[in-house]
């Protein structure tokens, strides 16, 4: 096995790891926050919010992430020549970097899948608790913030580790839109050195280690959260 290339590319790989983690954390946070209203509105909501949310989730879950990513990156990019002055606008530094498109696509994807999960979670909170909260006079907002949402999140917690690992495994797609994450770093190494397998094996190991840490972290968190049996 040929590992001579490794010392030379450590900075590139570290930067790639950093970008992968940023992609993961940002898409999970943004997607997670978005998932709450998307799930909630499918349970309570007026029809004009419920239907778009449902359609959004169906779209995200029914189409490959790669297509969503390319749709966003190349689709929006193809509109640029038609918008004069866009290159001098303040948005340009964001619009010209593939990284932000990847964050957007991954966040929307996470929101779509977790929206469905949150919908199930909101439905799964025992009715009695909600009724009790309303009975003691809490406003709908207070009921949501103090009872419904926390209980729904607790229901979701056991599966969260798996969902985040799933999101980690989607991040390599970012390299198809010029992001130099771990997979992008590997592409560069392979094209510079013509070595195909060892860089792939190396980043596979890194992803495995990341997966291990994520599951361990969540096992620990689960023990902190009291679950009434």
């Amino acid at each position, binding site marked *: 096995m040929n590992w001579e290339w490794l010392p030379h590319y450590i900075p590139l790989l570290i930067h790639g790891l950093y970008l992968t983690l940023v992609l993961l954390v940002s898409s999970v946070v943004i997607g997670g926050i978005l998932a709450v209203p998307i799930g909630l509105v499918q349970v309570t909501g007026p029809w004009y919010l419920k239907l778009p949310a449902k359609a959004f989730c*169906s779209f995200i879950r029914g*189409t*490959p992430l790669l297509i969503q990513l390319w749709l966003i990156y*190349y689709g929006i990019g*193809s509109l640029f020549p038609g918008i004069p002055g866009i290159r001098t606008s303040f948005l340009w530094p964001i619009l010209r970097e593939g990284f932000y498109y990847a964050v957007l696509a991954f966040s929307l994807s996470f929101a779509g899948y977790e929206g469905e999960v949150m919908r199930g979670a909101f439905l799964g909170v025992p009715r009695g608790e909600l009724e009790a909260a309303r009975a003691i006079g809490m406003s709908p907002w207070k009921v949501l913030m103090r009872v419904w949402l926390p209980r729904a999140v607790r229901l979701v917690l056991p599966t969260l580790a798996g969902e985040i690992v799933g999101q980690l495994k989607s991040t390599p797609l970012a390299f198809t839109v010029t992001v130099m994450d771990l997979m992008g770093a590997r592409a560069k190494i392979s094209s510079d050195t013509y070595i195909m*397998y060892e860089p792939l094996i190396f980043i596979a190991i890194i*992803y495995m280690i990341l997966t291990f840490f994520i599951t361990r972290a969540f096992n620990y968190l689960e023990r902190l959260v009291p679950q009434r049996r």
Partner: protein
Amino acid sequence: MFLAAAPLSELLSFGDKGYLDELMWGAFATLQISFLGYAFGCLLGLFGAIGKLSGSSFTKNILGGYTTLFRAIPELVLIMLIYYAGTNGLNQLLMSLGFEPIQINQLLAAVFVLGFVQGAYSTEVLRAAILAVPIGQVEAAKAYGMSSYQQFRRVVLPAMLPYAIPGLANLWLNITKDSALIAVIGSSELANVTRIAAGGSKLYLVFYLLAALIYLVISMVSDQFFAWLERRVRRGQPKLA
């Protein structure tokens, strides 16, 4: 020679000037690859599940390693590894056994790769489903004097299907979407065909939305099919909660 801006209607037509027929072939290739990969993966999963449940501890360890590895590494990385290294390894194996190295058709390579990845997931789904079969039914079969194979085929297999179907349905939807990942190694399934059509016509939004629509149709039809399948397979079984 170079594509001038042809009218939209022409680009979206079937036939030589339009990309729609390529898109349809791409969709067909996607379904082909997905279906064959899924079948291969389920087969692997069945053997994997049985091996994990009733094999020797050596088998259990190997299978445990296989499922853990394949579920911890991103599918894209796995697909690349198996496509480049796996087919190479297969040829090395064949050569060492004295056979001629075969030229592995890209379609077959994709099926092999996706199937292997799916095998790891379906092992877990099928294992959980087999464990969910009420043990009383298996014991009754044993009491009748059925051989292990008979027990499996006549009792366990039909009984575990209702438990397996939701998981298997998810896996099917996953594989139809994972087939798009094969685009990165350069195959002619829907995602790549769309990339070429979009690049050739410069109508990026149109073609990617069209591709998304095709995938959506595939997933909706699949949803309906699996709902029907689950109802059918649940006949005569006690209703769930």
